């Protein structure tokens, strides 16, 4: 059984719209001698799901795409971020495409553990729950530690019929990699100032290794 700072995680809710995947997540959980609660849904709201999980489990594992069928009216990123607010250790597990990142990024600060299926094993699950619990006490693992960082706008994407987006560069993280952010993720006061080469500050976890692990918050003028 996974112990997180003295408290045992005994029950883990498993949220996935595919019954086969739910079963497999449950087998992993049971490998760690914890009880898996297979959440069969459907969930009409993220609040209802959070209430259900909080009332029954000490932790949760959720898939990202929950809305494809009629299982839920929200995606896994929204759910895990809401559980984070309630200080419940949670993992978002998904085989995401780049397009999915647009939907995940706004919640990324409140998703301490984002794992791909091939990264999932008993060790990574235990470690993920631990790092969640650490963050609830305001302690961050290196890859999640927030730093005030200078950010440069590289390019603006405004494709017809699509939500506008910007490519940003974080010189103190990796000057060769551009990170795409949806304009709607950025505070409104920035919108009229989004031009190539504009500089801003944001709080970012620049210890992250992969672009998909970066989160952005507290934007301010440079």
């Amino acid at each position, binding site marked *: 059984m996974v112990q997180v700072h003295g408290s045992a995680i005994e029950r883990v809710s498993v949220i996935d719209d595919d019954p086969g*995947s739910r079963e497999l997540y449950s087998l*992993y959980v049971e490998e760690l001698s914890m009880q898996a609660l297979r959440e069969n849904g459907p969930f009409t709201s993220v609040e209802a799901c959070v209430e259900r999980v909080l009332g029954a489990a000490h932790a949760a594992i959720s898939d990202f795409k929950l809305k494809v069928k009629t299982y839920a009216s929200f995606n896994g990123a929204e759910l895990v971020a809401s559980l984070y607010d309630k200080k419940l250790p949670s993992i978002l597990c*998904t085989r995401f*495409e780049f397009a999915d990142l647009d939907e995940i990024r706004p919640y990324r600060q409140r998703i301490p553990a984002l794992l791909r*299926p091939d990264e999932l*094993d008993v060790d990574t699950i235990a470690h993920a729950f631990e790092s969640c619990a650490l963050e609830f006490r305001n302690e961050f693992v290196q890859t999640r530690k927030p730093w005030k960082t200078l950010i440069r706008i590289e390019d603006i994407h405004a494709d*017809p019929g699509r939500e506008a987006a910007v490519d940003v560069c974080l010189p103190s993280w990796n000057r060769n990699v551009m990170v795409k952010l949806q304009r709607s993720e950025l505070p409104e006061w920035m919108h009229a100032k989004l031009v190539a080469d504009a500089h801003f500050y944001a709080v970012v976890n620049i210890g992250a290794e992969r672009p998909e692990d970066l989160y952005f918050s507290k934007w301010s003028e440079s």
Partner: protein
Amino acid sequence: MVDVVSTQTKTTLRFATAILRRLGEELNPTMDQGVLELVKNSYDADALSCMVSLRNVDQAGGTLEIVDDGIGMVPDDIVDGWLVLGASEKELQTVTALGRIPTGSKGLGRLACLRMGERVELVTRPNKRPTEQFGLELVWKQFDQADTVEQVPLVIAHQKRSPKATQGTRIAVHDLKRPVTRPEVERLARAMILLSDPFGTKTHGFRSVLDAPEFKDLSALVEKRYFEQADYHVHATASAGEASVGIVDWRGKELHSADHKTVARKRKGTLYEAPDFEFDLWVFLLSAESFSTKTAKLPDVRAWLKQFGGVHIYENDLRVPPYGNPGNDWLELNVLRARSPEERPSTNTSIGRVRFEGKPKCLVQKTDRSGYIESTAFTEVKALLQDVLDWTARIRLQEAEKHRGTERGAAPKTTRKSKKKLDDALKQVPPKARAQVEEAIEAFEKARDKEVDTLKREVQLYRSLSTAGITAATFAHESAGNQIKALTMALKLIESKGKRELADRYETTLQQPVSIARRYTESLPVLGSATLRLLEGAKRRVGRVDVHDALLSVLALLQPFIAGREITVETKFAKGAPYLNGTEAAIESILSNLLTNSMSALERGGTKERKIEIRTALHPGKIILEVLDNGPGIEGLEPSEIWLPGYTTKVGGTGLGLTIVRDATRDLGGEVAVEERGELGGATLRIELPILGA
């Protein structure tokens, strides 16, 4: 009893002289902002004109002078007004004799402007005391030497006025600390021109003039008023939270209108918590076609819009900066236009004005004059205007669609009409030659019909392929996502449980089948991922494309399929990093279709030791891309036919791959060529593209 003697020391709060710098210079960082504050003081003093002059300012030590014909100041006005910094706005709400509402200057901008020099000279001739004038001098060095502001005594000199001297105020800032640059003068000129709503038809009786050539040029430009050349004009009003909007054409005739319910449909008709205002936007279609029927010239209108375009805000007939300044797109016109270029204006194609009558109490300007505080009221003004713009775009798009539909419907009718004309003309041809001409026309019609048929087939094929792409992208996740995820997790579980339960025996029993299953599982998501990557919107944006990078990225995307067919791909790229102006999607279309073509040929020919080579060579101004393979070469088709749509020797093939290569190459301004049997034995397809550099 003991007597208690109480003593008192009277004192006041005092300010270090450094506060002058902080309050003035740091809160009003630009020269034009400071000067504008002084011009606004003139407006508040009921001046009809205000002249700003700059003398010898191309180097430090010059002079800035502001002269107006306002009501001037008596000593009490100077003491209790002009010299008071940070006055409350409440005191400034009284309407002036000319009915103006004071702009509410707090004096900080004035301070910034005055501190631009070493010495300030104020001379004012009040209308209340027609025989007197008053003077005051501020020498900043005295403040720098003192510890507190109060330590520097200021003296207002009372003088007799010459009978010829009329009322007004003159402020001269001497010994400017630094030169004034040309861009600063241009910015000031623009700000002064826009200050008192030069676009309205109303005369407001205040004119501020900058004595500089830049101002004359811009004044002449602004006077041109190209409003009547606009293609359409949007007029909207907000009244007690309700919006209404109309679109009128260039003659002022109403084309469309909408009430609050329609404009506010996104917010289900709830009222806007915005003050009352009027909004006008003049939109120009800056194309040669649109200007062919207009009296103004396209470059003139373009220059005018470049200088004054954007949506400006006027409060009480005076402009509120920075809305509508270059680079300030507060209504996000440009972003919205980029998303829907057809029927949306940008700051370069439109000019507009939001006009608040009087001074709305719920809108408060920031102390540093960088616009309004982002209050609910201001956000709601923006929301209303954006809803108005959305409605306008919807209406314009509906119109454009209708127009396109009419054009499509009208085409056969037009053809019939033309045919009748031709027949009538033929009757005029002498009978002897007529038969010959008729024969030629018939041949031409047959050829044209064939071409139309080909185009129709091509369009249908493109539509089918687009549908296939859309379907693949939409269902990529469902078709394989869950299955792949479940297989990956199951295999990892089998592996970890197997290792634990079987210990050493795992290696000899389960390891091999598990690793084979894992390898196949890893190759499964490739098609879905590749389809989604090919459809990424950013790839269709025109911009700089690094050709080698784009080629390598296509190759990486298709690598799993190439490896699956046991094909070795070799790249032989020229030295350098060639780049062109185009879309990554075009390069992707070219190479992916060429590779798919080679892969099909290798499969068709049953070639062993399958090879594809991708070569690039650089020549002045162009890159030559060659894709060679050791397949059977071109069989069953003429080399020129391989580029035609629908021509294929592959069973079930679309015959469109190489047509797309040809079209994408032409889009990039290049040419295609083919060698039936090239250096490797199979076909060599050659693409020549113009480049910008390498």
